[in-house]
């Protein structure tokens, strides 16, 4: 995938603000990335085809086309992780981007530390070898093949639905899964507004997996958007 001779991953920044591109370049280069830039959506799609980036940072408000459209074009041929970086804070925008194939969404202004952490998650997620048989995060370990879930070394019994839900989170560890996506995948539900059933099951999972269910460390709420399984050390 990499065109760069070095082992540094290539990040493509698609943003119409030159200042934002400069700052992201400095920040990313300091943290071991190669950086390519594009100022418009069309240029971004072209650049992506040309240089096969390992990760794409995409702004939504581009002068020539909506970021959502760029995302759609990218997803027609590329599986490279896409991090949306936008000033748009509305949940509907986030859901649209995530359901449209974005892997994560961060709003401007963002902390660079958080951005880098999330980029690392996306990087890890991208490599199939980065997903071992047994998934670990904090006290949680999940053996997908053997269907064994342990918390702090103790086996936890899950119902079939709870297990399916957890597996979905493990397979997408670190990513935000929207309510609509979870409801479709687990309950085959068409209406993304019927979040009640999901809330109930998230409650069960937290009760069984979290040290303090009222202060979840593993299964995090993304208000108005969905849930995310944290990748703890």
């Amino acid at each position: 995938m990499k065109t760069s001779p070095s082992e540094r991953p290539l990040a493509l920044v698609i943003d119409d603000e030159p200042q934002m591109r400069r700052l992201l370049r400095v920040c990313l280069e300091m943290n071991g990335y190669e950086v390519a830039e594009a100022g418009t959506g069309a240029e971004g799609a072209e650049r992506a085809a040309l240089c096969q980036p390992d990760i794409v940072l995409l702004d939504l408000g581009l002068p020539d086309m909506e970021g959502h459209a760029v995302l759609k074009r990218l997803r027609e041929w590329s599986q490279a992780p896409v991090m949306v970086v936008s000033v748009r804070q509305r949940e509907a925008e986030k859901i649209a981007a995530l359901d449209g194939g974005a892997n994560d969404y961060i709003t401007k202004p963002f902390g660079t530390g958080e951005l880098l952490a999330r980029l690392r998650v996306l990087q890890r997620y991208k490599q199939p070898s980065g997903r071992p048989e047994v998934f670990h995060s904090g006290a949680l370990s999940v053996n997908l093949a053997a269907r064994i879930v342990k918390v702090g070394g103790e086996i936890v019994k899950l119902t079939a639905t709870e297990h399916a839900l957890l597996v979905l989170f493990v397979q997408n560890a670190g990513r935000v899964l929207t309510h609509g996506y979870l409801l479709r995948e687990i309950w085959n539900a068409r209406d993304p507004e019927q979040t009640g059933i999901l809330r109930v099951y998230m409650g069960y999972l937290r009760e069984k997996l979290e040290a303090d269910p009222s202060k979840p460390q593993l299964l995090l709420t993304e208000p108005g958007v969905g849930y995310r399984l944290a990748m703890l050390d």
Partner: protein
Amino acid sequence: MESRPLAQYLAVTVAVGLTTGAAFFFTPVVGPHATALVFLLTVVLASLFVDRGPALFAAALSALSWDYFFLAPVFAFEIHNFEDDMLFAMYFVVALALGQLTTRIKRQQEQEKERERRATALYLLTRELTEARTVEEILARARAQIEATFQMGAAVTLHGGRDGTARTTNGADEKAPGVPLFNGVENLGEIRLRAGGGRGVSHAQRLLLESFAQQIALALDRLRLRELSEQTRLLMESERLSKALLDSMSHELRTPIAAIKSATETLLELRKPGLSGLQDQMIAEIGEATERLDHVVGNALELNRLESGAVKPIMNECDPAELVHLCCAEIEARLARHRFSVKVAAHLPIMKMDFVLTRSALSNLLANAAMHTPAGTAVEVSARVESSQFVITVGDRGPGIDAQLLPRIFGKFARAPGAPPGGAGLGLSLVKGFIEAQGGAVAAENQAGGGALFTIRLPLGKEAEAPAAARELLR
């Protein structure tokens, strides 16, 4: 036609006289019986032009004249044979009937013409009114039409309208009869005729005037509706503009803030051990100021969104316990030096609410408590169900709310005197807006033992069910 009765009598007398004169020449040739038909013709023609009285007079006069001058014995009213008697009687009846019939036709014609005149007048008025664009124009045009139609002075008066003052086209004549401008719902004003020259208003004219009044009232109504729809259109346009402006403001303000924040953090990362403490401190100052700026900008944009009606709650089924725990976990760090306690009732039902708005509201209340109360004091959060409402309270043991401020604490820019700097006074109005948008309510009060107590109430709705019941259903 409209001439005086005396003239009409004179005219028919002349007509009958002329016919009599002519008959002296042709009666010797055609005989007296044909002459009767000529007289009949005169009566018919005359009654086409005169009223009923003169017509009857013409019929009688011609009958007598025929009898006297042409029926044997001439120059006498006597009639000797029965045949002539009968002829004379029948002539009299036919002439009377003819006169009667023709005048009736004439009257109908006149009524027809009158109707047509009224219709034309109404049409002209309607056309004039349709072209009017303002209330003043309607009144002026209506008055001109009324004066032209009725040939007398008129005044069109509006009752105290929206502005409370009566508008009139003319000094109204108080003694003249008034016709109300009634639009079917309310009385908008009245028309007054100034009956000059001793002439009154006939019944037909009165009816016409009432039709006029109706048309004017309708035109006024139409104008009002048009103004209303124009206002609505302007409002929609301004909403669209404000949304566009808001989006662009949001972008224009947040992008540089993002740049500052990103640059500051990178600077912190680049920091070398040799950097002086002061330099470190300055970077931290920039960072803190940026956070604050971002917060204020965010609040201002949210409030603008609320006020322009752009906030549409998305009511999803939510776990209220999850919401409270999430907000409390987020604020915990800032309340680390307070005695912070959270009491969430067990088995809260899944309920419909806008998770994001409610979370913003609760977070704002918690941030408020963190900002306005000294370290070491208690901050207590409770969540429970109370008479089919989900109730969240945030209580503190700080200085409480100033009594003067209390009634308008949820208003914009309401700031306690001597409050620590660092808020534009928008937070609580956002709380109110976010909760009320979902059909809930907020309240603020001072607690008995000192300190403030804020309460959020959200309706549970019909679909709320106990988690236990949901568990049964789902398994």
